[in-house]
């Protein structure tokens, strides 16, 4: 099967510092791929390159959908429109907006009413909004948050904020979902639930997932393949078993501590 996302020799430097150096990765449709590495290895930088927040200093980043797209040339909102959604390491919800509005906002790219309809609340607006609302509540239901739809996102407990961020990303109806440390700050029970949820949404929404995670139980438990970054370079790739026994990986992690 052809890959969905390819990074070919991708580099990014910030004022002489190589955050990412000549990285090659491939993500195939339907896979859950893990991206691991010590702090400062360049994992989030790679996410920022894929989503267009940064422009690569070198190499090629391509999304292979119906047509092939050069991600280096697209802006973040265009990339989101093409079907790449993400969550953030440090949770970036729209804090003052309600839980429901956070999700409804993400359907924005799929809206079919005009500014005119919005301003005059035409029947087309009313129909479209109530349909959207229904879909958003349905999605929140999957995450057990439908009963919290009217409270501001900032008032959710931490674990639920992380889950809401995933729900919001799903509302974009992406092909590729990037999760940046989804289990950070969760207790073991929450983490176990999260793993089940990720597996479930992957099948339900036909997703491909690339995830950064420090919690090895998550990475080893749900990823089919893993890439390991250290100091901006790819030092290993393979199945969870390969990675577990890879001496370079062990060294990178032990050297960290």
């Amino acid at each position, binding site marked *: 099967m052809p890959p969905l996302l390819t990074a070919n020799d991708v580099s990014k430097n910030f004022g002489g510092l190589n955050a990412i150096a000549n990285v090659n990765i491939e993500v195939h449709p339907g896979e859950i791929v893990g991206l691991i590495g010590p702090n400062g290895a360049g994992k989030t930088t790679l996410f920022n390159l894929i989503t267009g927040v940064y422009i690569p200093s070198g190499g090629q980043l391509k999304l292979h959908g119906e047509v092939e797209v050069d991600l280096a040339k697209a*802006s973040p*909102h265009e990339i989101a429109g093409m079907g790449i959604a*993400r969550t953030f390491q440090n949770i*970036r919800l729209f*804090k003052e907006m309600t839980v429901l509005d956070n999700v409804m*906002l993400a359907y924005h790219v799929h809206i079919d009413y005009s500014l005119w309809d919005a301003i*005059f609340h035409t029947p087309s607006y009313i129909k479209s909004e109530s349909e959207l609302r229904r879909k958003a509540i349905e999605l929140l239901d999957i995450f057990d948050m439908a009963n919290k739809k009217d*409270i501001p996102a900032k008032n959710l407990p931490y674990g639920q904020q992380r889950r809401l961020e995933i729900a919001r990303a799903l509302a*974009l109806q992406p092909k590729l979902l990037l999760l940046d440390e989804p289990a950070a700050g969760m207790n073991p029970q929450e983490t176990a639930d999260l793993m089940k949820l990720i597996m479930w949404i992957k099948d339900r929404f036909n997703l491909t997932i690339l995830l950064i995670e420090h919690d090895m139980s998550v990475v080893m438990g749900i990823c089919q393949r893993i890439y390991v970054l250290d100091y901006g370079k790819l030092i290993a790739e393979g199945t969870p078993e390969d990675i577990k026994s890879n001496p370079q990986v062990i060294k990178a992690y032990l050297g960290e501590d």
Partner: protein
Amino acid sequence: MADKRRNLIRNIVTLAAIYAIIQLLISFDIIDQHLQLNLFLLCINIILAVSLNLITGFTGQFSLGHAGFMAIGAYVSAVMTLKLHLPFPLAIAASAVSAAIVGVLVGIPTLRLRGDYLAIATLGLSEIIRIIALNIDYIGGASGLADIPRYVNWPWIFAMTAGTIIIIYNFIHSSYGRACIAIREDDIAAESMGIDIAHYKILAFTIGAFFAGIAGSLYANYFYFLKPNAFGFMKSIDILVMVVFGGLGSITGSVVGAAALTLLSMVLQDLPTLRMILYALLLLVIMLYRPQGLLGNAELSWKLLKRGDKDAAATNSK
């Protein structure tokens, strides 16, 4: 749905009642010239505050140049009615559109700026507008224009004020408005959700300027005369204070803010210096003790009025 319809009917009835009662009071001269002047000023201020709130409160683009848009509207309207003898409906439409065009022009270069840099740039742009007006002889330079025909009456003022509130309220409660609020909350996350930030920032400036232009037109064709210095830095601050006082991100808050500050100026109009001191103290006290404004980002609604604003305030404060 039934709930929504009942609300809609209730809102229409309320609006019609406000319109009719005030019209009656004016007809019977219970609202005299002096009161009427302040009432009209209040409505113009409401239009200005609500439209600035869209830019600053909802979209998070800190603007200190709203008076500039108002100036464009006022001068366009004055020239069209006074010099070109065109009908007022045409003049008010042209005012709104020209202010909106300037809004686009202001919006584009300011895209790269945020926070206080944007504030100071919008301040600069509106000062440039004022200084240009000072130097055009055709529109009277520093002494301004006089004898502008008075076309504005209660039906006009009411229709424009209610129209502004309804349109901006509807905009906010749509996917477009959610996009604006999302930009205010976190622009990077908004972009990652597929929102074209530049587009919405410009849209907010354009719509905000459009209504400020209408306010300017109403001002020019009610007060007979205008001069550039009425649209200086202080006027922009004035509008901002109304918005902040009522609550950034609350439309009803802007209405309350405009009402409170217009009333304050009315009561203290014979003591202009004292009025400004009180004004300044008010600003400081609000910022120190209730920086989110009277209503925060909550809206005054029927439900809220019935229940008392306790729980709504509780969920919206902080």
